[in-house]
């Protein structure tokens, strides 16, 4: 009887142990499944958040690019600058013209004389000026390779009318750039006259 009781007790204990093992395993499996579910949900939430952040960054980049590309379209100045007066505009334009003259003069001084043309070109200009009655105004003619420099001292002729008179002369029917020295007394005028078939270097290098 005692042995039977011991065996019975052992059996009961074994059953309880097996049952607890089985139940534990089931709890573990349930917990693992729950963690997996949570992880899956968390990943989905993170993906969604990442997607939203990407979209937001994209929008910000596009906005900043458009702003930086088109400053005048997006950001108008709060207070427009006052319009320039005629004197200011004229002064600005004289400065621009002086830059052009400076560029052409530099090229002229850097050029060598063309022995086959420089003398002939200078004579043609002189001759035309004399025939037009402007020989008395001539202070000098010098020709390089692609252009000539003509110095005139103006008398009663205003530069406005002089331009029309000059363009009727064959030697001046190319390209002529005017440099006014209005402050000199009497007023002086320097002309850069392109050789036929050539153009004056009006634009900076690399610009049209």
């Amino acid at each position, binding site marked *: 009887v005692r042995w039977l009781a011991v065996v019975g007790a052992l059996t009961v204990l074994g059953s309880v142990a097996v049952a607890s093992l089985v139940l534990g395993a089931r709890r573990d499996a349930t917990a693992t499944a729950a963690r997996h579910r949570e992880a899956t949900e968390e990943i989905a939430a993170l993906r969604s958040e990442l997607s939203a952040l990407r979209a937001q960054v994209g929008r910000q980049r596009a906005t900043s690019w458009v702003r930086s590309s088109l400053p005048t379209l997006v950001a108008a100045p709060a207070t427009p600058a006052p319009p320039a007066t005629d004197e200011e505009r004229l002064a600005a*334009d004289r400065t*621009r013209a002086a830059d052009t003259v400076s560029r052409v003069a530099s090229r002229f001084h850097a050029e060598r004389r063309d022995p086959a043309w420089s003398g002939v070109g200078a004579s043609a200009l002189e001759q035309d000026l004399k025939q037009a009655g402007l020989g008395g105004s001539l202070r000098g003619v010098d020709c390089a390779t692609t252009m000539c420099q003509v110095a005139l001292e103006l008398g009663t002729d205003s530069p406005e009318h002089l331009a029309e008179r000059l363009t009727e002369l064959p030697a001046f029917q190319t390209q002529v750039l*005017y440099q006014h020295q209005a402050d000199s007394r009497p007023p002086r005028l320097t002309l850069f006259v392109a050789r036929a078939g050539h153009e004056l270097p009006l634009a900076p290098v690399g610009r*049209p």
Partner: protein
Amino acid sequence: MKKRSLFSSLVVALVVSAAPAGADTWEVHGNRCQPDTGDVGKFDLSNTGLFNVNSSSSGKLHCPIEYISDLHTGGLNSTTLMVRYVDRSSASDVTCTLYINLFDGSPILTQTKTSPAGASDTTQAFEWSIGSEIGGGRQLEIQCTIPKATSSSTRSGVRGIRLDTNT
């Protein structure tokens, strides 16, 4: 990748459509030109252009050039001017000079073009590439000397003017 390229295309399209016009073209009929004071009776206005009908002497035309100052602020663009003309005279040529003046009338630049020798019924063109020598209040005019007519059907004249600018 596909989304990114689609987005880029959208932004580029937005920028291109919103960008200011990069080119300006102005066209005008030859009748815009005016005869010189002494040549008023020599020219005939017609729908095809302004022609010298005088059989005794050549005549001069003055053609003012109009441009949009906002697109020519000075030094930021390239400009081409074109005069379309007909030279039916075998004895003399059509000659046109571009004058660029400061707005106080001081000349800055003149450039003269002459038609090829010989007569032609076709419409030809003079072209001036003046770069950025425009804007800032400068005044532009083209003066053309048109040969005399040798008969009622051999008249020379100006058909029109075109100005192209790239900003």
